[in-house]
């Protein structure tokens, strides 16, 4: 048999020891745990445990442990809920909308932004449970068959919110996982021991065959198409929690686009706040370049103007409507007892981002870090302004009131940051923080073209 002797001559050579540069650079982030990392992780775990303890105490004693008192029954918990849902918007925007627009620069940041989306939604969802005093009855919001034959009220914005948030959580996890699948396979082929076992299970046998890539591309395209209207709907629905009521300062048609722009604004700011230190610590400057940061700051500038326009327009409508309650509510926002939060919001969200008109500052990393952190603070205060000042100054001055967050609320608020940071820290050590296969797509393209043309 002559063919068999040929076979002997053509035995496969052992795979070369050298792995691809991209794999080595990006998988290295997952290796080794420094004392600084452990310290940070311990701090986040501690804050989560503290928040959990306070929460159990609150369940035992009741919501009075928070600053909830007549007439303000939506406090820091709802403010923080809206804040985290907003943060969750950047990931899907970057992954889905920029994917549909074929904006290639998204490759450097889409993985971490998607991860932040998932973690922020998980953080936000907890606040619904924390805010509902009787947590053991929270399943009442779901339409399930019961002995009373009673169904939920589908006309209620809170019911819409349940569907919107749970859909968003599910879809962002699916999107995140599908994007991660090829990268888990890369890690699987290089891991040992327990990690090998984990990645083998999670990679679902991914080998990067033509058939797999073809269905993968198609699935990502379809999910982007589905997630794009979804991301716009989620914060719109959150805004209708407010806008569907008749509270002065809430009852406005501008709320949906205003909230969506604010969500994108805060989400991009959070991606920058997190990725600037990560890039520096893990030396990822070759992958996340100043060009990426500059594009992000352009988005911040644009959305800052949309948000600033909404702030101004709210005041205009309050004046133009001639409704006295509206006018009073908005006057008191700026010059009433909560003036501090309003002016913080205006400074952080409208004035500070104007620095990004200058290219020198758009590429100056410390400036970007400071401004994006300010925006995070400002966006939290925006929700504080909307919720607290409006509830505290409704139609009848006899029921006006003042709300001050208690230390219990602030502990749980701090715990939410701990929870988010904890998940992100664990993610960095378990999965590639940059989408390796998408970076490779660019690398291989570039190599092929430089080989042909020059």
């Amino acid at each position, binding site marked *: *048999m002559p*063919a*068999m002797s*040929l*076979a002997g001559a*053509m*035995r*496969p*050579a052992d*795979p070369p020891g050298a*792995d*691809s540069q*991209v794999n080595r650079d990006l998988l290295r982030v997952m290796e080794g745990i420094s004392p600084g990392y452990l310290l940070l992780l311990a701090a986040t775990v501690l804050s989560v445990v503290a928040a959990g303890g306070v929460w159990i105490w609150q369940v035992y004693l009741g919501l009075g442990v928070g600053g909830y008192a007549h007439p303000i029954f939506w406090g820091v918990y709802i403010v923080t809920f809206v804040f985290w849902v907003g943060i969750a918007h950047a990931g899907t925007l970057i992954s889905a909308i920029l994917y549909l627009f074929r904006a290639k620069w998204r490759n450097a940041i889409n993985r971490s932004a998607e991860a932040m989306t998932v973690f922020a939604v998980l953080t936000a969802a907890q606040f619904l449970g924390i805010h509902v005093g009787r947590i053991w009855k929270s399943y009442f919001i779901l*339409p399930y068959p019961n002995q009373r034959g*009673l*169904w*939920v009220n*589908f006309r209620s914005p809170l019911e819409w919110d349940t*569907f*919107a948030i*749970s*859909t968003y959580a*599910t*879809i962002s996890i*699916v*999107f995140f996982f*599908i994007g991660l699948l*090829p990268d888990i*396979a*890369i890690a699987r*082929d*290089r891991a040992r021991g327990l990690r090998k076992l984990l990645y083998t299970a999670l990679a*679902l*046998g*991914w*080998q*990067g*065959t*033509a*058939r*797999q890539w*073809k*269905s993968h*591309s*198609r*699935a990502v395209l*379809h*999910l982007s198409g*589905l*997630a794009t*209207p*979804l991301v716009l*709907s989620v914060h719109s629905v959150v805004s209708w929690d407010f806008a569907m009521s008749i509270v002065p300062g809430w009852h406005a048609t501008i709320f949906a686009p205003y909230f969506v722009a604010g969500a994108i604004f805060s989400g991009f700011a959070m991606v920058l706040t997190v990725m600037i230190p990560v890039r520096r610590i893990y030396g990822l400057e070759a992958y996340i370049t100043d060009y990426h940061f500059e594009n992000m700051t352009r988005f911040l500038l644009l959305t800052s103007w949309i948000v600033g326009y909404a702030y101004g327009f709210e005041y205009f409508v309050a004046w133009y409507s001639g409704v006295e309650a509206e006018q009073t509510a908005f006057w008191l926002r700026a010059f009433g007892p909560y003036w501090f939060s309003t002016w913080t919001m205006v400074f952080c969200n409208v004035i500070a981002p104007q620095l990004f008109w200058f290219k020198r500052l758009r590429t100056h990393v410390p400036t970007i870090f400071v401004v994006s952190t300010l925006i995070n603070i400002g966006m939290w205060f925006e929700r504080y302004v909307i919720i607290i000042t409006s509830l505290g100054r409704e139609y009848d001055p006899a029921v006006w009131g003042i709300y001050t967050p208690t230390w219990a609320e602030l502990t749980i608020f701090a715990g939410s940051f701990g929870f988010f940071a904890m998940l992100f820290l664990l993610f960095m050590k378990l999965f590639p923080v940059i989408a390796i*296969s998408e970076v*490779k*797509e660019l690398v*291989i393209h570039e*190599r*092929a073209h430089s*080989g042909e043309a020059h």
Partner: protein
Amino acid sequence: MPALVGIYDAPGPVAECARRLRGRGFTRLEIYAPAAFPELDTALDEKPSKVRIWTLIGGLLGVTTGYAMTIWMSYDWPVTIGGKPFASIPTYTIIGFELTILFGGLATLLGLLVVGRLPYGRFGKNDRAYSARFSAEEFGLVVECRERDVQEVDALLRDHQAKEVSLVEP
């Protein structure tokens, strides 16, 4: 049947070679790639991926479920408000919309798994040819052929810039 594995550095020659091989009647082919490349999507199969049917069915199922559930529940416990219809279609649109996305997205995931033959779908005929090189930066073209065709396929693979060709036993 023995299988030949050609190793490549770029997707273009892989796609070209696969087409030539299919033209010559070799149908048991497989391509391994480190990333998604549009030219490889049509190399083995010109038809668009069937994942799209999954998304469509999921989405339609979602929108139907959303409206049907809300409307049925309104009539199952009718609440009379000023003689208005029991079901409020405009507000139910939000539920219908969200469930379209939810069901459509989950069906897309399911479609990816079924059409892409995951999980563990490829631990079958060509699995012996897989190597960690394909999750680095190299491409693999696997051809199953009869003993007497080995030399022809080998020459064809090398003609299309394969940097090495090896034989995997059945």
